[in-house]
């Protein structure tokens, strides 16, 4: 019944010899994805879906990068005629929207969808069909935005789409509608991912992984997921209100001051989402940094509790500072002071994290400066600059000078590229062997890092000065007399260096996939459970669900560490454990592959895209969605044997037995 290697004497654990070969063969069979295109469309494996998310999001990152390059070409010199205002407005809007909605949030949640189940030691996410649905919805939203851009109907009112500029009076045509519906699509996907991550992390952890033993990356993803759940509805509501304001025949006037609506209402709703959004992107980055630092320093995280509490308090305070994006609007001074206070105080948890990371590095063993660690060190330096300018922006009077200038452009790229993309690249180098079984090339990796670091600072550091010198954001050109030409040229040269860094990364990925050094199961000697299985992991993740005795299960694995063996192998079954103690609670059958997520996503797409043109899309879409949901929930006949199986005892690690619970 339990671990073949089990030693007697620990609690009262039954020992039994396991038929490893039979279990493996059965797991292979019950978890396999159907071959071919149909299999590709119907899979509910969290790893396949997460990899799709990561690849898709990275492609959008490249698109967004190309748009950024176009902007830097345009702004390299004053009065350039490379792009006119019409093209430039579409380019900067789609750049911002892509990076926020189609790249940063999806790629971070995708890392969570891949690694949370592996790190907590389970076989799949909690709701695999929903997970597949989320990806298709996200993909549709992304394609919609780019079809718009390519047909010269790209949104052109900024990623923030302030009304009345984006309202029916000043933005005729379908450009803003495409933007609003893209938002709704991608936020559905984000909400789906958030639900998956929370339930998987709270209910499906390996026995023994109590709350205080959850890996820091998983904590970061949980906090992110909660933030998504509270932030995204605000923007979905706002984008839907904007869509109905714009929809002929409905014309709701939510944001039209002439009809009793309010232009500032949009800004409140948008930034109530928009500021937490920044932390939704940044907090997974901190989870990555904590993971990588522990691995490379080869010591336990300094201040685990402080790190977790910092994440949670960032999650809370992150909702209390949206008004610092609105200091230039006529709001009462006392109200502004409150938001200044909150904006400056959020530096405290960030400071705690930075001190803990430095302490971990200091106390740890000699550091091998491998590419993932270099990206982490680049992150610390860059993010501290971004954090300091963030304190400046939080101060209401100073913000009045730097708000909506290139100073903010610099700041936001310091926190988003420094705070999220550097850790992300570190993570891609770090986990590449887990996905492919091969390490990425170190020399190309170092080249990639230095090009990106130098290119980044060359591009964005001068923008601080441009902002102080009076250059506003979102301008397609500027006059030669302003004297902004030289620093803009420097920024454009920096952008070229940064681009070279990204190209080095792409070359490295394609080269290493074939020719990288074989990695083995745990090339970095890491401590978290995703390294306790093969690279790449089998479809069922673990042959036997591991048990956990401390925060660093892989480092402290001993021959007598028990594994869970009572799960059925002939159906897709996972172990559900208690939220706090992770004591085994019951077994739970996960669904097989299914086509219904794709069908439901198609029905959703018909609804949301149709609404751009006619209100009739809502009843028609509701009917289609209903049909898809009937298919989705159609019960499978359950073999009687399964019912009997439920009462089988299930001994597990830490002397826990499932008998009492079932």
């Amino acid at each position, binding site marked *: 019944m339990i671990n073949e290697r089990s030693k007697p004497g620990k609690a009262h654990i039954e020992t039994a010899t396991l038929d490893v070969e039979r279990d493996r063969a059965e797991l292979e069979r019950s978890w396999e994805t159907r071959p071919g295109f149909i299999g590709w469309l119907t899979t509910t494996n969290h790893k396949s879906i997460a990899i799709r998310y990561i690849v898709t999001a990275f492609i959008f990152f490249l698109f967004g990068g190309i748009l950024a390059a176009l902007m830097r070409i345009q702004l390299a010199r004053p009065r350039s005629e490379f792009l006119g205002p019409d093209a430039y407005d579409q380019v900067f809007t789609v750049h911002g929207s892509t990076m926020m909605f189609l790249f940063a949030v999806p790629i971070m949640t995708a890392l969570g969808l891949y690694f949370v189940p592996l790190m907590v030691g389970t076989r799949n996410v909690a709701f695999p069909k929903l997970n597949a649905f989320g990806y298709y919805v996200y993909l549709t939203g992304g394609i919609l935005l780019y079809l718009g851009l390519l047909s010269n109907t790209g949104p052109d009112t900024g990623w923030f789409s302030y009304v009345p500029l984006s309202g029916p009076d000043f933005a005729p045509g379908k450009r803003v509608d495409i933007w609003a519906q893209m938002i709704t699509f991608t936020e559905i996907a984000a909400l789906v991912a958030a639900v998956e991550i929370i339930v998987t992390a709270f209910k499906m952890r390996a026995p023994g992984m109590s709350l205080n033993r959850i890996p820091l990356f998983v904590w970061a993803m949980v906090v992110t997921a909660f933030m998504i759940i509270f932030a995204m509805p605000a923007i979905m509501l706002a984008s839907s209100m904007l869509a109905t304001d714009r929809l002929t025949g409905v014309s709701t006037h939510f944001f039209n001051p*002439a009809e009793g609506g309010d232009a500032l209402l949009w800004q409140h709703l948008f930034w109530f989402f928009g500021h937490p959004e920044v932390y939704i992107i940044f907090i997974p980055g901190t989870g990555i940094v904590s993971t990588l630092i522990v691995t490379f320093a080869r010591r336990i995280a300094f201040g685990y509790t402080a790190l977790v509490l910092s994440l949670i308090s960032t999650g809370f305070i992150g909702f209390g500072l949206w008004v610092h994006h609105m200091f230039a609007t006529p709001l009462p001074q006392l109200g502004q002071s409150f938001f200044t206070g909150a904006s400056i105080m959020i530096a405290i948890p960030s400071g705690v994290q930075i001190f803990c990371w430095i302490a971990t590095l200091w106390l740890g063993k000699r550091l091998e400066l491998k590419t993932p660690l270099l990206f982490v060190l680049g992150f610390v330096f860059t993010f501290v600059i971004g954090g300091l300018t963030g304190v400046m922006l939080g101060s209401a*009077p100073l913000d009045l000078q730097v708000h909506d200038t290139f100073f903010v452009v610099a700041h936001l790229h310091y926190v988003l590229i420094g705070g999220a993309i550097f850790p992300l690249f570190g993570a891609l180098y770090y986990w590449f062997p887990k996905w492919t079984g091969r390490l990425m090339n170190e020399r190309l990796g170092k080249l990639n890092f230095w090009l990106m670091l130098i290119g980044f600072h060359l591009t964005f550091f001068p923008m601080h000065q441009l902002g102080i010198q009076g250059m506003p954001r979102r301008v397609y050109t500027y006059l030669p007399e302003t004297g902004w030409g030289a620093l803009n040229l420097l920024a454009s040269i920096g952008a070229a260096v940064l681009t070279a860094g990204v190209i080095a990364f792409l070359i490295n990925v394609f080269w290493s996939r074939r020719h990288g050094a074989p990695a083995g199961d745990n090339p970095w000697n890491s401590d978290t459970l995703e390294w306790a299985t093969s690279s790449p992991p089998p479809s069922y993740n673990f042959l036997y669900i591991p048990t956990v005795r401390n925060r660093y299960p892989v480092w402290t694995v001993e021959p007598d560490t028990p594994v869970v063996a009572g799960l059925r192998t002939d159906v897709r079954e996972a172990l559900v454990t208690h939220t706090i103690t992770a004591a085994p609670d019951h077994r739970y059958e996960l669904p097989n592959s299914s086509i219904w997520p794709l069908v439901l996503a198609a029905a959703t797409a018909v609804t949301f895209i149709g609404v751009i043109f006619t209100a009739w899309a809502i009843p028609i879409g509701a009917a289609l969605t209903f049909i898809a949901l009937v298919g989705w929930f159609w019960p499978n006949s359950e073999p009687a044997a399964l019912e009997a199986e439920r009462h089988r005892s299930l001994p597990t690690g830490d002397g826990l037995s499932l008998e009492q619970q079932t």
Partner: protein
Amino acid sequence: MKRHKETQSRYRVTGCCCAALMFFQDLSGAHSSVEPATPQAGRIANLWWVMFYVSVAVLALVTAALIYAVFRRRSAREQTAPVDLSPNTNRERKATRAAAVALAVTIAILFVLLGLSFTTGRAVSFLSNESPLEIKAVGHRWWWEFQYVDPVPSRGFITANELRLPQGRQIVLTLTSNDVIHSFWAPNLMGKKDLIPGQESRLIFRPEKQGVFRGQCAEFCGFQHAQMGFLVLVESDGDFSDWYNHESQQAVQPSNDSEKRGRQVFLSSTCVMCHTIGGTPANSNIGPPLTHLASRTSIAAATLTNSRENLAKWVTDSQKIKPGNRMPPNVLGPENLDDLLNYLTSLK
């Protein structure tokens, strides 16, 4: 005035120190947040420099700690020891103390900055008792309307894209918009404030330095947001009242035949549908008022200098200069254009 000069030289010194530190060296210009022309912008610039130096110090300390942590020498024994799950060494305790001190210092710094921020915020929104000069600014796509409100209604007037102010007097600027959201920003004078349709906001400042300053729309407002500029001319009291008295008048009458024909061209073409010339039937505010066009130094929202040549280019095809702006191209015969330009340049 003397005090103001002192502060000026202090900025120069600070600027020089700074050049040595990083490349914030040359922040000169008519649109710079750190070359204040009002006490209000001066307070904000002070706050900026405090935060700047604190940030440089914090960054230096954190980077030094990071470099030390990465490159610290490790003993061979330390290097080979197994991972300790509950380390309790001397070094561990030292690290805990260091982190606690760093956190305490961080919190202290943040509270000091917060306090400075509050006092600065109070100072820059302070309204003194003396009667201010009240001006209303209305944002249009893509030009600025400035309404000088006079106690004698007939002496009030409207001008565009150039805000003239008397030196040393408190200004209260009321801001609103009649289309989309714009933002009024002249960095040397004061921080920005949004112009929001259906709402009024207010900026208070006191220009204490004569000169020409540049401002620009800071909230994205569509195609020509990038070139929605304006100039602020701070003048002596005498110069200002001369200008004020002149602006209160209607437009001058054409003085020769060509100018008369030019006025006829203006009134019989599409010009009249969008522009105002005081004393003529032209009375619309879609485009900027042209009553005293020739006394302005720039045209096209502070984008072109006000010359006959630029005016000709602008009138015939402004779309080439500022694509997407609301003025259509005008097809005028060479004689008509010449007459029109004669008339427009006579509008002193």
